[in-house]
């Protein structure tokens, strides 16, 4: 077992790992940050997306030991300092961009990465970017709408909430 230290949501943290411990398991089992979800075993579903040094990464696709020392942000670090929902989170609630909530952490983290690089994406760009995040509940309609709204664009013209 090897102790791996990194910065998660602004705090320096450490947990024991095996060589095979994935970042997703490190966060969930090692640190108790269970907001990062595991929806598949082939790095397809995107429920485990977190930010590693500012980049969106599927946490099931990297070993914890390989990102020792990194600056990691998870869904638990996305709310405002006062605990209220951040802009993206609020847009997801306002526009009913989640149902069962399981894919939601990954969706929010991917959205944050998208809007950082592309602050005013088109609908098509949003759909293409979120192609690596599966949702079985929403049909993506309200997720796409929430992302557009979070980017400050007017979504009033999009049919039905």
């Amino acid at each position, binding site marked *: 077992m090897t102790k791996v230290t990194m910065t998660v949501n602004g705090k320096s943290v450490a947990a024991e790992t095996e060589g095979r411990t994935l970042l997703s398991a490190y966060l969930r089992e090692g640190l108790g940050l269970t907001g990062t979800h595991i929806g598949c075993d082939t790095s397809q579903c995107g429920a485990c997306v977190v930010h590693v040094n500012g980049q969106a990464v599927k946490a099931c696709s990297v070993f914890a030991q390989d990102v020792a020392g990194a600056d990691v942000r998870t869904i638990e670090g996305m709310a405002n300092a006062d605990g209220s929902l951040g802009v993206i989170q609020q847009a997801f609630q306002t526009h009913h961009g989640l149902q069962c909530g399981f894919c939601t952490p990954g969706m929010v983290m991917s959205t944050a990465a998208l809007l950082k690089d592309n602050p005013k994406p088109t609908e098509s760009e949003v759909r293409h970017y979120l192609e690596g995040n599966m949702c079985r509940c929403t049909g*993506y309609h309200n997720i796409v709408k929430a992302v557009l709204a979070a980017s400050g664009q007017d979504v009033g013209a999009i049919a*039905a909430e």
Partner: protein
Amino acid sequence: MPKDGGIGASTVRREDIRFLTGKGRYTHDIDIRGQAYAVFVRSDVANGKINKIDTSKAMASPGVLAVMTGEDFVGMGGNPAGWLIQSRGGETMKEPKRPVLAHGKVRHVGDAYAVVVAETLAQARDGAALIEADITELPAVVNMADAVANPANRVHDEIENNVCFDWGWIEDNRAAVDAAFKSAPHVTTLELVNNRLVPNAMEPRASIGDYDPGTGDYKLITTSQNPHLSRLLIAAFVMGIPENKLTVIAPDVGGGFGSKIYHYGEEAAVLAAAKALNRPVKWVAERSESFLSDAHGRDHVTKIELASDKEGNFLALRTETLANVGAYLSNFSTATPTFLHGTLMSGPYKTPLVYVNVKAVFTNTVPVDAYRGAGRPEATYSIERVVDKLCDELGLDPLEVRRKNLLTPDQFPYQSPVGLMYDTGNYQATLDKMLELADVAGFEKRAAASKARGKMRGIGYSTWIEACGIAPSNLVGVLGARVGLYDAATVRVNATGNISVMVGAHSHGQGHETVFAQIVADQLGIDASSIDIVHGDTSKIPFGMGSYGSRSLAVCGTAMTKAVDKIIAKGKKIAAHMLEAAEGDITFEDGKFSDAGTDKAKTFGEIAFSAYVPHNYPLETLEPGLEETAFYDPANFTYPAGAYACEVEVDADTGEVTIASFTCADDFGNVMNPMIVNGQVHGGVAQGIGQALLESTTYDETGQLLSGSFMDYAMPRADNLPMFTVDHSCNTPCTHNPLGVKGCGEAGAIGSPPAVVNAVIDALHRGGHTNISHIDMPVTPARVWAAMNA
């Protein structure tokens, strides 16, 4: 009206806060101190005789605490089928035992035959890899036609032709239907496949078993849509433990779509292991296991015939279906192709004569059971496809043919020829609304624009009905159900006036915590923020049957409103005493009990306080406290209906189909929260489009699942789908529940697949490929290209 939104408000969901901040509590997120980890060992052959399972190396592996095999569970009962179906010859269906772990034989790839429990998950995995199973592979029964035709190969040794039942509905109508076909001016015949689907809720199944030797109490935390039903199955049928000694908790559940209705062997195994080891045992499925062990959906092969006159008036309809039940009978698997399918086969139409035949067939594949829509998508797809084929053959307009055959509002209540009594509807209204919203009048212009871009554009329709709000217990009892299908709610008004509502329904994405609170708030005229909805824990909630079949609101919601009615009735008695008025003079409005004609009144909070601090209270005639329970058994099914339109573009070179638009005009009765209802339709339509264009569950001839991961099984992704246009303004409220609600959870998945396929065929016809009468789902580019180039 409550200040924070009652019935009809698009109140945002309170549950979102925890889901958006990573604070959801799904089974995988829960750890119990001292827990061990279970890994199941699954068959890699589809059909095999188990000669020997050597567990010695696994037991010697570091950290391994226990290994259990099918042998350890032979004394336990089987996981039962919930419905007993009678064949048309009168014999009872074949019901082979479904053990906790496979014993003697393995019957599908993924069939679990051993479980390894270890100190850590990694050690359990390592131990599982050391199980040595000597299994003789036998010829696999995969294809249904072969299964029936080749009785030498058997899934269950004692079932010689692999047929579970051969069901006719309604047998008394068969001769008249056959006679109508003989004399019909036109008969359209279509053979089609309703493709097998993997539900793939994003949260894989997971279960934690716990046992307290001090009390003899078991606890199961599990991914269930219906904790009480699971408890009943485990306690009474499988493990033989008293129901009161088992608590089943379904915490946050990440989607179900039917796949989490059922009791699975892993649940009993972790409970048994927990008792044997005297410590909690946790199991979380990997996605690969989900593909190999969650109940799949659909999988029908159907021949449908529609008899009509030359003007397209339907005269009779007849179907023959082979329904795959897989290797074992899952809990609802026998109801799905029969009473959720055959009874829908007259659709929204006047068709006077209908006969349905379904043979359920065992195969060496994962068990098949109800998946979003469950039988009703299969019925709707068959009907709506054959209607379009009839229009092609007779040169008639598919909208006009639908319109002339739809039931009209004056025909309700309508006794269908397949056993249902539709209470109300206005199918013309939803059809007209769909035509308007989809701008059907402007289609030719859009088609011309597509053509200019080298694309073939088509439009397809579906007018559909479903039977929801499952279900009247006395009726389903006659039909073979082994349980009742009522639901229950307890409304507990606390001494300080806030309210806890314990419901039998389970929310795994539907937003009950928000919507149910809206309804109670509306009824009581108090703010929803002071009302909590409690669900998912058998130690807290009354005995309800859970959520599936679009039943939560129509059945459990009704129980809840009836419990609130009892609260109000008791509140009036208390108020009458406090106000020194006659009970009959007390009115209740906006959270206030008033003595009619006076200015005397007591607030809801004052009444609640008085009930718990009964200093001035009629104790000699009235119990203190303010808590009421109601059970509700529906008088009838509910009948949501709608009209859908899909526009597609087909690439003439590649055969790729793109959804250009999708429009839904639904009748769900009264709508409690429009935002949530729209979301339900979006999700259902996405699953229907997934079935129509993308999702294919493929077995090879040896029974290996070729589409066993998200890399092989095409789930709908954000860039496969358009924005949807949905509407539910054409409401005809349900006539037999107080909220007038019908249910909306499955509609999208039921109505959409035929609209998509009809649109593709229309596009191909418009593009000159008039010889193509049908393409089976999923309508992949390869299939379209092959049809174009045949």
